[in-house]
């Protein structure tokens, strides 16, 4: 009887609950409805746009491993054998998933080191979703609402600009599309696309605050919206952008658009001068020059208008070691210590020589430039940016001076040519110190002494943009409707603040002659700030620039140099060499990146760029 009861119980138990037990509440994550019924989580969703911002100082920015984006152009050479120099610089750009700047990846989208284009499309969808959700919800306060839509418009404009400046005109992406919609877009011209950037920045300007409180400092502001609009306008006026989507031909600036660009830049400068709402942007002085880029214990440098503050979460030490610090200073033996990105002779030659109160290009007959004493009397920014062979740099643990021995037989040099991470590449002979302060090395480990943001737009750039647009619109010394500052004035402001004399008058006579100096000034002032590459493209001079080899310096010290304590006193013999491992293949079609093959084939009306 007892057994029978147990038997019945067991049999009954095993048949129960058959419909219920799969109905557990899933304990993972939060649903879409929850996200969009709460200000913090909506903002948290929008804040992915900050995370997706490019950070050029990250160790693996844009999946370029340890290569700086600057090694795309003629500014930098790299000792890291990776996809940038092995593939991107060989011009093989078509269908390159996982190829950083020129290609795609999809597995890191949304992270600061993913491809900039992938992140841009990803962020566009976020901004569109947020704008749609905000329009539908009623619970937000006016301030919350304006914060959200102001930033959403800003990012929609910014990321859209990042796409079109690389790929050319695009359809307008102003909705969060779903996969059952007809997505067969047709591409618009660059100018039509540019109008979308301007419209978004105008909306952003309307809703964004002048400044954020200290806790939220680093978010986009009215000033940032104005500055992006100005930068985008200069691009819109540039030669490359005068092509329609089916052509890439060498063209001129569009004068009307140059006038607009100059006006927008002037708006920024006026806004800065007003200091509206407590905004404290300013052109920093020559004494503070290095602290434009890194600085201790302030929110962001006053010259930074639009920048990636979140970059602080990248692991600053690794980024510094990978990009800028040679192995002996970095310590360790791995890749992170062995692959730095160094200035080329090409960029070094752009720094002018000061001779008798005037500044000359090095090939100017009056420059007095001596190839065997090449680093004398150069533009002060040269000494801020570049470490030359034998230069004293930093102090060791016991307070002894350290010297950069990037010369033949020097210790830094020996490490480069013996280390099997680097021995198949050729060093330029220089080291970049623009973002590397003394003490950030294995001896003193002050890697986190300063904050190092990735700056997209700073005040000096606005002057340079203004000068470029003014020169094209009105000539070097012309003024326009409400535009009282001439192109020459704007350039001299940038030069004078670091102690550089005015541009030689012989260069300010014609638009064409001064154009060259503006471009040189831009290369010098914005060195290593991820501008040069895009400037070469939009000016359409990349083919010409890359037809020249990338060069480096070989400094040979006198015999017995090991015994000399102060390496800066060594009497080097200098030889400029061509770096055979620094190849740059750039043809006409490379001005626009190839649209991903998948998209072109998926979308019948979506045109591929010419030549791809």
């Amino acid at each position, binding site marked *: 009887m007892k057994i*029978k009861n147990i038997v019945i119980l*067991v*049999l009954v138990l*095993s*048949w129960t609950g*058959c*419909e219920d037990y*799969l*109905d*557990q509440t*899933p304990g*993972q*994550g939060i*649903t879409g409805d929850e*996200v969009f019924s709460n200000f913090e*989580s909506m903002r*948290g*969703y929008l*804040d992915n746009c*900050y*995370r997706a911002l490019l950070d050029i100082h990250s160790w693996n920015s844009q999946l370029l491993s340890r290569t700086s984006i600057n090694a795309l152009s003629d500014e930098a050479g790299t000792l890291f*054998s990776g996809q940038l120099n092995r*593939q991107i610089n*060989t*011009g*093989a750009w*078509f*269908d390159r998933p996982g190829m950083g700047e020129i290609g795609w990846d*999809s597995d890191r*989208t949304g992270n600061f080191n993913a491809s900039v284009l*992938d992140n841009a*499309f*990803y962020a566009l969808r976020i901004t569109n979703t947020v704008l749609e959700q905000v329009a539908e919800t009623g619970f937000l306060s006016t301030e919350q609402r304006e914060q959200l839509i102001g930033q959403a418009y800003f990012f929609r404009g910014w990321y859209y600009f990042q796409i079109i400046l690389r790929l050319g005109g695009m359809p307008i992406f102003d909705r*969060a*599309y779903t*996969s059952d919609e007809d*997505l067969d877009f047709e591409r618009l011209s660059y100018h039509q696309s540019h109008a979308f950037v301007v419209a978004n920045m105008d909306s952003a300007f309307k809703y964004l605050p002048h400044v954020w409180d*200290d*806790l*939220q*400092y680093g978010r986009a502001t009215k000033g940032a919206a104005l500055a992006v609009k100005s930068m985008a306008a200069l691009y819109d006026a540039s030669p490359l952008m005068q092509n329609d989507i089916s052509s890439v031909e060498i063209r001129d600036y569009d004068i009307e658009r140059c006038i607009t660009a100059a006006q927008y830049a002037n708006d920024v400068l006026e806004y800065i001068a007003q200091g509206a709402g407590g905004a404290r942007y300013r052109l920093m002085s020559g004494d503070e020059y290095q602290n434009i880029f890194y600085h201790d214990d302030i*929110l962001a440098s006053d010259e930074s208008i639009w920048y990636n*503050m*979140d*970059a*602080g*979460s990248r692991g600053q030490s690794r980024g510094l070691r990978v990009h800028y610090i040679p192995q002996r200073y970095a310590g360790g*033996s791995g890749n992170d210590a062995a692959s730095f990105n160094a200035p080329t002779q090409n960029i070094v030659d752009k720094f002018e020589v000061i001779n008798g109160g005037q500044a000359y290009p090095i090939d100017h007959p009056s420059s007095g430039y001596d190839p065997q004493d090449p680093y004398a009397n150069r533009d002060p920014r040269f000494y801020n940016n570049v470490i030359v062979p034998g230069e004293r740099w930093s102090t060791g643990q016991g307070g002894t001076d350290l010297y950069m021995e990037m010369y033949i037989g020097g210790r830094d040099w020996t490490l480069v040519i*013996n280390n*099997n*991470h680097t021995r*198949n590449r050729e060093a330029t002979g220089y080291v970049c110190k623009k973002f590397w302060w003394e003490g950030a090395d294995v001896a003193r480990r002050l890697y986190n002494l300063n*904050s190092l943001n990735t700056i997209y737009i700073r005040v000096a750039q606005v002057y340079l943009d203004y000068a470029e647009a003014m020169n094209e619109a009105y000539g070097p010394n012309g003024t326009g409707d409400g535009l009282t500052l001439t192109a020459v004035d704007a350039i001299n402001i940038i030069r004078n603040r670091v102690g550089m004399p005015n541009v030689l008058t012989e260069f300010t006579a014609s638009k064409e002659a001064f154009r060259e100096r503006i471009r040189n000034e831009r290369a010098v002032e914005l060195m290593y700030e991820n501008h040069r590459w895009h400037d070469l493209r939009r000016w359409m001079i990349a083919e010409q620039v890359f037809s020249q080899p990338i060069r480096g310096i070989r400094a040979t010290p006198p015999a017995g140099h*090991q015994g000399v304590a102060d390496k800066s006193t060594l009497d080097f013999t200098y030889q400029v060499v061509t770096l*055979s491992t620094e*190849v740059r293949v750039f043809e006409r079609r490379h001005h626009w990146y190839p649209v991903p*093959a*998948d998209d072109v084939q*998926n979308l019948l009306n*979506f045109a591929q760029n010419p030549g791809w």
Partner: protein
Amino acid sequence: MELILKIHKTFLCLFLILSTCYFIGSVPTFGQKKKDKEELVILNVKIVDKNENPVSNALVTTGEGILQVLTNDEGECALETTANSVLIIEARGYESMTIDLGQAGMPETITLNEALIFGSDRDRVNLPTGLSATRRSLVGAVSSTTGEELTTYPEAVFQNTLQGRIMGLTVRNIASGLGNNTASLFIRGLSRGGGDAIITVVDGVERPINFLIAEEVEKVEVLKDATAKILYGPRAANGVLLVTTKRGRQNTRIIKASAQYGTSMPTRMPGYLNSAEYATLYNEARMNDGMSPFYSAEDLDGYRNSSGVNDQRYPDVDFNDYFLRNHTPFRKATFEYSGGNSETQYALVLGYTGIEGVETISTPVEDRFNIRGNLDVAISPAVTAIVQGNAIIETREWGRLHQDQVFNAIRTHRPNEYPLLIQDPDFVGIEAEVGDEVVPPLGGSFRHPNNLLGDLQYGGFSEYNYFFGQTALGLDVDLGQFVEGLSARSIFSFDNYQILQNGQSLTPITYDALHTTTPSGSDTTLYFNLQKRQIQDRQFRQSDNIARNTGWTSNLSYAKNIDRHAFRVDLTHFYYRNETGQRLQDIENTNTTFRLTYGLKDKLYLEGTMAYMGSNRFAEGNRFDWFPAVGAAWVLSEESFLAGVKALDFLKLKASYGLLGYDGAIGYYLYEPRFVNDGSAQFGIRNQNGVVRTQLVVNGNPDLEWERSQEINLGIEGLALGNQLQFEFNYFNENRSDIIVLAQNTYSTVAGGETFVMPENFGEVSNRGFEGAVNWLQNIGQFQYSVGVNFVHSKNKREVFDEVPHEDEYLRRTGRASDELFGWVSQGLFREEGEVSDAPRQLFGEYGVGDIAYEDLNNDGLVDGRDERSIGNSFPRTTLGVQLNLNYKRFGLFLLGTSELGVDRFRNNSYYWNTGEGKYSEVARDRFHPTNNPGGSYPALTTTNGLNNFRNSTFWIEDASFFRLKNVELSYTLTNTGWLTKQLRFFARGTNLFVLSAFDDLDPEVPNAGVLNYPMFRTITGGVTVGF
């Protein structure tokens, strides 16, 4: 000396087992009569049918289940037995007969009653959830082998014993180190084209099988068609491998012990160049790249005269030779004890398996103990309790490095990378002490700061402990007293799997020696410290994992025969849940089936099943769905029109169709948009204010439905020529639709990146093919032999696939088999400058003379991503197993050959692709160089990544079809040798004896064996089995 110790250990084990046997054998056993002292008699017996015709090939079992003989063509056999033992006679086409000699005396002839062919209890085919069918009435496709047959393959991983054994099952080996190299199993090819894994079920519950030993297995069955799989529910559509463990049988008492010892030897190993050859070729590579040679003539001389592994300036380390040995022991001992009477049946199996790794230093050791007990006890006349328990305890001890890490070092550390030890008298560095051990200074390089000797010898250790416990408790109730023919059964199961890894990780100090010249001009060596000393003061838990299975199965069955009509109804319900640490969502599903079978006159069988499947992978409302399967079998040989065909003993046609749901390859929580609060955006002073970000994890789709598998099976099976020829052929056609895919390629990324796409019921794959098995068995006097072959041929096709609609048809994957390999079409090497300039431009990376030329398929003047096409396939179109069994008197010989046909592989691991700063294998000798080796067929060497050459192309593909002599057993059997043993069987076994293939340098089945991980082993063992 070491070897002797190992043998000693094995014998100690055997001794322990034998003494246990003796102990058990000498006490009265549960449910068994105490025997009088037994005297052996020789029994000559003839087995006949009711017409006095001899029955050949009848299996006569005596000795309480241990001794077995087959009758000859005259139906006669002779066996030694005792006067009071029990004979069990089994023959195909006859009912089994049990004769207690103590009561029946010594019969000279035994008359068997005829039975339906494949219709008796012996012909039971196990189906999921405790159901079964006779082979005669089976409408579907199920093939099997026995555990006994698998014992011939000495191996620590159960999957690996299955290759070539079962029709329809494809077993593909992998290289993954000691005890981890579990072969991948496929049933009837690739039914989904990705995520094709089958499930393995042990005694009714989905469980891992890699730790099983063949000795505890009664039967392994492979369920292939819809009517069989539908019973196992939502995870079964890819196929089910069903393992049934041994249970006690009535009237038997088996006590059996077995021990074997042997050696495993690597088969094919990659060869690498020595320092002198490496340095010479590296210089050549530098010059090919337009750079100056790196090693001077003096260096090359130094390498040529190197003093070996510790040459301070010119080391020459043969890593294979120094760190690997060419034999490793295999030990196994098992003990089986089973039996029963009509009330109680029991089975106990114990096993020990011991294997070791090939590393000479910190040799990995794995020891496993298996204990399994199955018990069926009648509690009352109508109620039987079922108790099943299984425990597996395994320990693995090795150095800090896993085997793949060791092989990674071996294949990447160049022979001249570093001297193993720094033995420079002038060396000034830290003398490191790790524990009691003094660690000498070790060499290293910037590229490889770690030193393999240091990591193995001074790097610490790791230890794995596995504890698996599996239990099942159930009741079988005959409800005949209420309704005749009604019975019920319920089994609850609970498994626990624990893995714990402890270890201590130490980092020895290494130095790179930089040889330079001092200011005064003399040579000096600077030591650059690469690795700092790191010591853990104790062992740490390095990883752990716990998994749990719970579930139950219930059956309610009703059977009724009315005249010539046999009805049976089964209502079955099961629930299965698997919880594994770290997994996002538990596997949880349920299946309720209603199965109706009908038999007419034992020749026509019909079957229909409705299944109500449930899975937690779908949104509420879509969690449950109905699926049907139907089948029919017709025994043609019973029909009068075939009665005249004497040669044909049995012939059956069968057909089945079913529509199954599948949830086994669906991601977790795909049924709703899901966000997480994760990570932050940083603002404020020095980015100290982290604001939480909300991220979209998946743009989930609430409308997701079940993946569907529509399957047809058509088969014919039979027996002919006096039951000597047995055959079965099946045709199958499966269509898998509604495969859940995140169709990222179908939708443009410009609309918003990957989060824009929702998972959808999107993909469709069809898979068809045929399989067959033929077996011939013959007795010629004392010589018996059987020969059998089984094969499966399959090819699938992607009907709907997530891809971009490429304009060039050859780029498309849709309409092709899912295993097709895509690559470029090589036109050989560029051998002259003119060839390079005339050819279309190749856009992969720098190239020139000595590099691979590719065909420009679309004639656009460029070779790029648009010039790839299908150039082979990675899954064998046909897999084959051939078995030969020879018995002559006491000798037995078993041979198993296995084969894959119609399969290609790329030669693309680091052995074949020598690039950059990597190690050079012996293939580099054949490199092309215009002057040094103009006849070379390997691309010119380079210090770059070689992006032009090292990509999948026809240059690297090879037909990897192979035939392997997989397994051999030679045995010698003595019966009734004395008072203690009834049977004594000596055997020698061998595995992987040779392989024939066009892929002839590394193993064609596992080219990564020996490169990325352990090599393929050839194992030779010898041993003895004793039956008491």
